Structure formats: C-alpha cells, structure tokens
C-alpha cells in the first residue's frame, strides 16, 4: 500500500447548496478531516481542518474574503494557498476542488 502514494482520487463530497455562502462544512476522507469553504463569490476551497498553531478547527472560523480566521486564536489562513498570513507563519494542506456547474456537485481531488 505504500507503493500507491501517487494515486489520486476524485471524490464527490457535497452539493453547492450544502454549504452556506461564507460558511463551511466538513467531511472525513481517509482519516483526514477536510473543511470545505464557500467564498462569497460562490467558489469552493478545501483545506485540512486543522490550524497549524493549536489544531483549531478552521471550519468554525470566520471567512473574510479569501481567508479564514481560526476560531481559537485568530490566525489568518489564505484559503487558496493554505499559507498562514503574517505575523504568524505556517501552512495548511489544501486540496483541489472541482464543481460541476450543471448538477452543483462538488468534488475534491485527493
């Protein structure tokens, strides 16, 4: 099983209507909790649901523009790159998302 580390899968995780604008939902995939964020422009971002600081659940944070603020200590994380914003440092794993505009299905590539 260690051999297949490069295999990726495309997983249908949600419908757009499941996620409120400027809101988030979570899904557990292979023991990773993934947070799905829907930005006010309608697009969806997927990140591991863990702040690099103290493990806060980012899905519970406030979404401002293209960033989320961790609910525990207000670390600001860019939702596209996963990069923690200054003055703090660190990075969160991100996953590519795809949206089927016809059906509204949201996919994650992992």
């Amino acid at each position, binding site marked *: 099983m260690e051999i297949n580390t490069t295999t990726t899968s495309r*997983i249908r*995780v949600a419908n757009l209507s*499941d996620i409120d604008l400027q809101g988030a939902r979570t899904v557990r995939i292979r023991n990773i909790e993934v947070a799905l964020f829907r930005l006010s422009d309608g697009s969806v971002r997927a990140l591991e649901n863990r702040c690099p600081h103290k493990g806060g659940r980012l899905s519970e944070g406030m979404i401002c523009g293209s960033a989320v*603020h961790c609910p525990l200590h207000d670390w600001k994380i860019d939702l596209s790159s996963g990069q923690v914003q200054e003055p703090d440092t660190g990075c969160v794993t991100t996953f590519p998302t795809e949206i089927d505009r016809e059906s509204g299905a949201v996919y994650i590539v992992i």
Partner: protein
Amino acid sequence: MNHKKKLVLVGNGMAGIRTLEHLLKIAPGIYDITVFGAEPHPNYNRIMLSSVLAGGAGLQDIVINDWSWYEENHIRLFTGDPVTEIDTDKQQVTSRSGVCVPYDLLLLATGSNAFILPLSGANKEGVIGFRDIRDCETMMETAKTHKKAAVIGGGLLGLEAARGLLNLGMDVTVIHIHEHIMDRQLDEAASLMLRRELEEQGMNFLVNKRTAAITGRRRVEGLKFADGSELEADLIVMAVGITPDIELAVSAGIPVNRGIIVNDYMETGIPGIYAVGECAEHRGITYGLVAPLYEQGGVLAQRLAGMETPGYRGSVISTRLKVSGVDVFSAGCYKDEPGTRSLRYQDEIGGVYKKIVIKEEKLIGAVLFGDTSDGAKLFSLIKSGESIVGREKELLLGFHPGQSEANGSIMLEQMPDDEIVCGCNGVSKGDIGEAVAAGCRSLGEIKACTKASASCGGCKPLVEGLLQLYTGAETGELVKEGICGCTTLDREAIIGSIREMGLKSVKEVMNVLSWSEPEGCTKCRPALNYYLGMVWPLDYEDEKESRFTNERYHANIQKDGTYSVVPRIYGGVTSPADLKKIAAVAEKYNVPLVKFTGGQRLDLLGVKKEDLPGIWSELDMPSGHAYGKTLRTVKTCVGNTFCRFGTQDAMGMGIRLEKAFERMNAPAKVKLAVSGCPRNCAEATIKDLGVVAIDGGWGIYVGGNGGIKVRASELLCTVKTEDEVMEWTGAYLQYYREQANWGERTAHWVERVGLEAIKQALANAETRQELVSRIEETLSATTDPWREIIHDKELLKNFVQLPELNSVTE
C-alpha cells in the same frame, strides 16, 4: 392665510433635494414648498445604483429622504408626475396628471438622461441606459432569464454597469470606441492596468469598435460593428454619456445651450427661475458628477435664504471608480502635454500606478491606480494651485527620504481658510476650524456638525489631518483611530453614516465607506453586525457569518473543538425536575464533565458539535447565552426569603431582571447580580451592574468587573422600588449599548467616559424612559437561538459532517 412665498422644485433628485435640505437648515420655514418628481420614488442616491447592482445594497437602502422627511418638513410631494408645462407669465406649473401649482420662485433640477446613440435598432426591447432605478431593475430582471450583456462605453459609468452585470451572473462585453478604457480620466498605463484587472474579474473588452447597428426583431439579439464584425447580446446598456434634460425649459422659453444657462447664482435668463445640477450649464460647462451639484446646491440655498454669497465659480473635478477590488482615482489634467512635466511610479507586480502632472511649479493633475489613499491630498493641491517645488517626489511616493513626516501638517497649515476641504458638502478649512473651536473632538463630531466627509468620504484624511492640527496644538489629544485595519473611520463616524445614509447591511457599510478589505476582518465584521443591529433593532437581519463561532453555533467552543452547553437558570434558582432533566441528558450523551459555573449555572462540557441540537432539544430549556456578547447571568443570594439578614427579595429581583433582559446583545458580555443585604453575598459590586438591597430600597452599582483587572463598581443611584430598579437598569444597559465601542466592557466604558457623564445622561426621567423603550423594542425582536436552530433544517445542517459519497481513483 398663508403668506409664505411659494417655492416649486421640478425634479426630485439629488441636486434639487440637496438644495432644499440646505435651505431648510439655514432658513427653515420661509417657503411653502412643492416638489414634482418624474420617478415614483422618494429622493434616492443615484451614485449608489452601482452598489445596488453589485449586490451591496437593496433599492430601499439607497433612499436618502424617505416619505416622512417630506412630511416632517411640510413639503408637498408629487411623484411619478413630471411637470409638463411652465407658464412664465402666470407663474405656474402644470404636471402630466393636471396638477397646477403657482410659484413665486421656480427651481429646475430636471437632471439628465442617458445618451442613447442614434443607431438603427436602438428602440428595441433590451436596450437601456444606466440612469435610474428602473434601469437597474431591468438589468436584474434580464439577468434571470438571459446570459449575454453588452455595455457600449468603457467609461466610468459603463464599467460600473458592467461590474454590476457580472455580479448578476451575466457574460459581459464592454465595447469602447477608443483604444483605452476610461480614456477621459486615465492615461495609457493606468488604463491598461485597469483593463487587465477587470479582465481578471471576468469582463471582456472590444476596443476600437464603433457600433453600427443593433440587430434583432422585437427584442435585441446582437450588435453589428462598423468593421463588419458582430456580437450576440440579449441586453445592451448604453453608457456613452448623459444629456441634460432641458426639454421643459426649452418649451417655456428659458434660454439654453447644452444645458439651461445659469449665472454664478444659479439664476436662469428668466427672473425667479433657477436651475441646479446636471440640467444646468454654468460658464459653458455641464457637470455629471455629484460634488459640483452639491456645491451649486449650497450656493443656491444661500441665495434663496437671502444670504450673501460669493456665488458659484465652477468646480475642478475628481473621479473615483466604484468597482469592488479596483481602486482608481483621477483629477485635473492627467495627460502629458507641451509645457507639462510628470512623475510616475509604476509597479506592475503590486498593481500600483501613480502619476502626477506638473505645470509651472504647480500640480495640475493626478492619476492613481491600486493605491488611491493620496487622492484627496493631491486633489486639494490641484485646487489650491500652490507651488509644489521641492515636494514633487514626496507627493508621488508619499514620503521624502531623510525628512520627517511633518510635511503633511505644514501643507495643512498653509492651506487658506476658505479652501473647500469637503467638495461634496462645501465645507471649508475654516468651517472645520470653527467646529473644533466649538468643541468637536472627533471625525464623527465634525461630520455631524459640518457634514464634512459625510458623503463620499474622500476628504476624510484631510479632515482628520485638520482635526489633529487644530486639537494637537491646543490639547495634544490624538485623533481616534479606526475600528480596525480595514478602515480609518472610528465608531462614531461609522454609526453616524449608518444612521444618516440608512445603511442596512455589513457589506453595504464596507462598500459605501470604502473599506480597504472588501470583506473586512474578524474585528470589524462583528462590530458592524452589532452596530447595525443596535441602530435598526427591528429591520436589521442579524448576519451569522459575521459572528464568532460561539455565537454562530450558540455554544462555547473549547480548545479541543468540542463545545459546552449551559442552559438558562434564572437567578440561579432551579427545581428538582430541571436538575433531573439535565442529569438525564448528560448521561444519555456521555457528557464528560458537568460543572457549576461561576455564575450559578450548570455547564455540560466536552459535547461534540453534532450532538448539540439533540441536547438542546431534549433539555427543552432556553439558552443561557453563556457564549455571547449578551446578558449572561444574574447571580443572586437567597435574600429575605430564607436569610436572617436579608432585607429584600434578591431572588425575585434577580429573576425579574434576567427574564427582562435575557438575549440582549451588547458590545461585550454583561453580568448582573442582586444581593439581598449589604453583606453582598452575590458579589454584586464586581458586576457590570449590581443591585444591593438596603432597608427600604436598592442601591444600583455599575462598572464593576471581576475579570483580568478587578474593579469595584460605583454607586449609580439609590431607588425605592423594584420597578425603579428595572427602569434604571434598562436605561443604563441601553445607554451602554448605544455608546460603548464594540468589545468594550462596562468597566472600561465607565472609566473612559466617567461615571458623572453617565449619571448626568440618565438623570432626566424622560431620557430614561426613552432608553427603556428602545431596549424594550430591541428585546421584542429576539428569539431563543437553540429553539430556532432545532426547528430550522438550513441551520441544522451545519452541525453535521457531510457523508463521503463516492470516489474515482485515477
């Protein structure tokens, strides 16, 4: 009976009504006023139509003066009924519906119309301008059923319309006749950067295109260009300019050119008839921007009030593009011409471009893209015409290597007193000086007093600079800083704007007040959400996405991501049945820890988020709001019910207070306590408000805190009855809700403003009653959040994880 002079205003738009507003302020009640408007709306803010399209504001939100304003000022208003005839001999006007009104003075503010290109097919359905609410509604309606939009005209108005259509989900193509968009305000470099930015937002451009015809049968289907190419379109917005609406004036024999010709006092060629705004032509110029119209309105109001006025001398104009994510500013002569020199700063990576144009030691123009914060400062220098020798680089870059930052204040000091600082409202440097001398000490106060920076806000840095200049020398007091990094506005200025402009949503506040971050941050979002709710208790819909986790999920988030549940236990008094219920629920959901809180309640800790709705529903008790910036607990001692020292019914008083004020949102958490005697077993003197019974009465103590910095409360007043306790508590809490900064606990608030000031404010019984009725109104609109969530599927869904559906391995 009525001997007042009759003033008739034709046109219910921004220019005309602004004139009346001004007139009513400086000379109230001297005229008997009638207003005719062609549109079926009260006076609204036309420049905010782009915000309506962009989704930041609703149509009802952009009304400046609603129906009641006309009533309060005894103005007769006819809407949807344009004036069709002026009889200058008989001095009377007649409207379309046949209303005939005589006048002594007639004021024409008929505005302008969108210029519709005389193309074949221009009369087809789906071809509109971008001028009024109806155009906006047409765009919003069309976007529901059609996809393709074309905007003819890549100027300011066209780009704002295009951005709005993009927001409505349409494919948008902007057609521009020249090579560069916004070429009347921007030079080539800035125009290209703007175009790139807008293309990234999804806008398409066709430049160097001359439209030849509009195709389609009844409804528009596309465009044909002079070069033979074509474009499909279901909606065409013409944004190629405006033409002054002079039809009525022409038919009445009033002299016109492009617009109605007026002199420096806004008088037309016929005595007693004035014109103001976009329909007027002054010294050969017609204006289509709001600032000049307001300046004209100011002059005319003074004239009508019989005051001395130097008259209107024309306006130097500046423009700002109101498109989210793009900052563009332009003023004066922005192009290089013989005899001019310019300095440029171009950063293609950061997306910043700045250019200043200089002629004979003076600044004559500026273009800013990406960073427009210096716009007001540069604009003021252009208008003043002073020498800028030696300061050129500093003006461009915002700093001068090797020099201190004192230059800004030198510039302000040298500014002449009669120079207009706020172009929108015609406020001069001298006016601000007077306001400061009269006691204004913050931007908000200056705004309330002079209206400076109350409209577009572009002059805010200047006003702040002047405030600092005037107060700095005399008191050393610093200007208040903005509520967060996204704005330089402070609480007073923001709340003032919310009230004044009738702003009704967080997004709208950010749009209108030019937030630097389009969606704000965790500091300002909850603050705005609170302020809006405080100002409009019945109308404002609470925005849960602008609340912290705790208040969004109505439970306290703990460090491991679990939550805690605290049901409300009024006054700390419970019953065996409730205790059993709590115990049963705790057992059923395997709650790992049950604890008494510091405020006499039971805390169920370590609850998984998905279990919260189940627990709430089985408890069937109200939320204790142990997580919010709300009323938390009312702690009590046993009082005279059992205690041998108790002088009053502390439990009863506490329960009554808690039932009255539960669910009350506040700038910060609020804790109360009631002690039945001066032994103070409920520790009421370290609470936000504590009530301590004495023989035959109650002492009310405020501003206490048992938190990080312990503060003993101070006596607000002593009263005799429980009803008086309720009244004073309600008034005090509402006063705090209205006056304190977001996040400011009562202890800090009391220290900042001083107990004496609060005592004074509450001393008047009438004021207390008003405060009480406002808090009652606010409380009447609250509901129990737990109950709300367990009955609402949409809210419930956010408490559960999504199922993983299927996966395709590649």
